């Protein structure tokens, strides 16, 4: 891998940018791999990268039906935080946070991880109880978190409406200062480039159409570009999780729903941090290019279309104007949707499956972007060792039988 740096930029500028190498190759699929990762989203690419980097696996392919990063990785509102409620979830997301903190350097690709802080607003006494509970838990888990007052919020975010006369007045918030945003596409590309440099084959435009098994073990996959043999198959396809599970005659407690987002036209900076509100249903940040990136709600119905209902967008903008009356004259540039994999307890499934050599990582729903590096890291471990890492052991599929759910609806009620 040729290194990216200010120096290489300069050098290449002199050679008219003609010597930049491919960020990742576009190889033909080989007949056989040790591990095939299905799904070239951030999670799949990260899994391949850590398999190669941490576990020395070399013969790995990532198989993507479209273009890498074209799923939810490329359509999310990029919020990264680790202030979850339950210890199991917190530790997993915190692992991810720690990886984020060195990710640009590790990948030699600037993923623009910007720790500008995330505010989760409280609008009722019950919200404030939940915030106290979550912040307290975070601190005991070694995760930075604080409870801030409406006055502190107003000081940090001058354009926010903290009027006590508001329909849902802001009573306070939790703040995680290490949280923030990252450039979503760059995460996919950075992992792809770094994985490719370690020999991973990234195969785009290759849809998996079947999972081959023999004697209860996986033997490979059928794809639109032919069959590929593999000793192990890791599936990370977000909204398509049950479609892939069906191929192996397995059932998952996952339902796919459209989740939408929108951006405004690019403007001069008005918002330097990230604001989320469960009660009024909106979350917002401003990208480095200047657009306001706004997350909307999930549509109630099952859907595989990368689009959702218009009224959901209207509702979100009502909420945004409620929180930020000064944004009323700003204009929506574009709205879109992604297919999110909703799990009953709002927590992921990162698990071995009843079929030997088959692993699933799904259920991240509305909030898995932040987990990208951590998810890849533990999933790589799970695949390489054929057993979960301590961090993802609780996220086993069996919890739905035992009842040991990790209910993160409180921390994850709104998409983020």
């Amino acid at each position: 891998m040729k290194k990216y740096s200010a120096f290489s930029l300069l050098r290449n500028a002199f050679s008219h940018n003609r010597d930049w190498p491919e960020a990742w190759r576009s190889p033909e699929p080989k007949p056989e791999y040790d591990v095939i990762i299905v799904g070239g989203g951030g999670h799949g690419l990260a899994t391949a990268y850590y398999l190669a980097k941490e576990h020395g696996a070399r013969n790995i392919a990532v198989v993507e039906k479209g273009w890498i990063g074209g799923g939810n990785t490329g359509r999310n509102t990029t919020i990264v935080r680790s202030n979850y409620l339950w210890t199991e979830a917190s530790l997993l997301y915190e692992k991810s946070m720690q990886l984020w903190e060195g990710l640009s350097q590790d990948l030699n690709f600037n993923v623009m991880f910007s720790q500008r802080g995330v505010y989760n607003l409280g609008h009722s006494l019950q919200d404030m109880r939940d915030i106290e509970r979550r912040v307290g838990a975070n601190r005991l888990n070694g995760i930075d978190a604080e409870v801030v007052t409406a006055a502190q919020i107003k000081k940090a975010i001058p354009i926010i409406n903290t009027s006590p006369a508001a329909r849902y007045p802001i009573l306070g918030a939790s703040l995680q200062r290490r949280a923030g945003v990252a450039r979503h596409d760059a995460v996919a590309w950075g992992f792809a480039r770094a994985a490719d440099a370690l020999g991973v084959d990234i195969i785009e435009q290759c849809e998996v159409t079947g999972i081959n098994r023999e004697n209860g073990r996986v033997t490979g996959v059928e794809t639109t570009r032919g069959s590929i043999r593999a000793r192990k198959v890791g599936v990370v396809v977000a909204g398509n999780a049950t479609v892939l599970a069906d191929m192996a005659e397995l059932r998952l407690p996952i339902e796919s729903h459209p989740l939408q987002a929108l951006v405004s036209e690019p403007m001069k900076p008005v918002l330097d941090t990230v604001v989320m509100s469960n009660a009024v249903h909106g979350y917002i940040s401003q990208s480095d290019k200047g657009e306001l990136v706004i997350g909307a709600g999930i549509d109630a119905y099952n859907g595989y279309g990368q689009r959702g209902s218009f009224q959901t967008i209207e509702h979100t903008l009502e909420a945004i104007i409620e929180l930020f009356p000064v944004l009323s004259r700003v204009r929506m540039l574009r709205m879109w949707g992604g297919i999110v994999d909703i799990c009953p307890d709002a927590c992921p499934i990162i698990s071995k499956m009843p079929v030997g050599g088959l692993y699933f990582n799904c259920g991240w729903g509305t909030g898995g972007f932040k987990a990208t590096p951590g998810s890849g890291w533990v999933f790589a471990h799970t695949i390489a060792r054929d057993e979960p890492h301590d961090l993802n052991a609780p996220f086993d599929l069996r919890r739905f039988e035992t009842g040991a759910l990790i209910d993160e609806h409180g921390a994850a009620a709104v998409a983020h």
Partner: protein
Amino acid sequence: MLLIACPYCGERAETEFSYGGEAGIARPKDPHALSDEQWADYLFMRKNSRGMHRELWNHAQGCRRWFEVERDTVSYVIKECYEIATPATSRDNQSRAD
């Protein structure tokens, strides 16, 4: 914004309805006879079909009736709306848990 034909009131905007998920999931007759795995299947496992999906909708702002809809989850095109299928009239006899 879907246009949904309530079998009782006629075509109305999606905003008048609430969604109830997959239709035709029969509650097991004797839950206590089921293994934990079978019970979990009933509780959590859904078809989540990519394509035609038989689902429940409630005309929440209208007649408050639940009814069934067959809708394509990719194109969102609604094929049919009809009254709750009773076990006898069910168009799909694959309800798993029983």
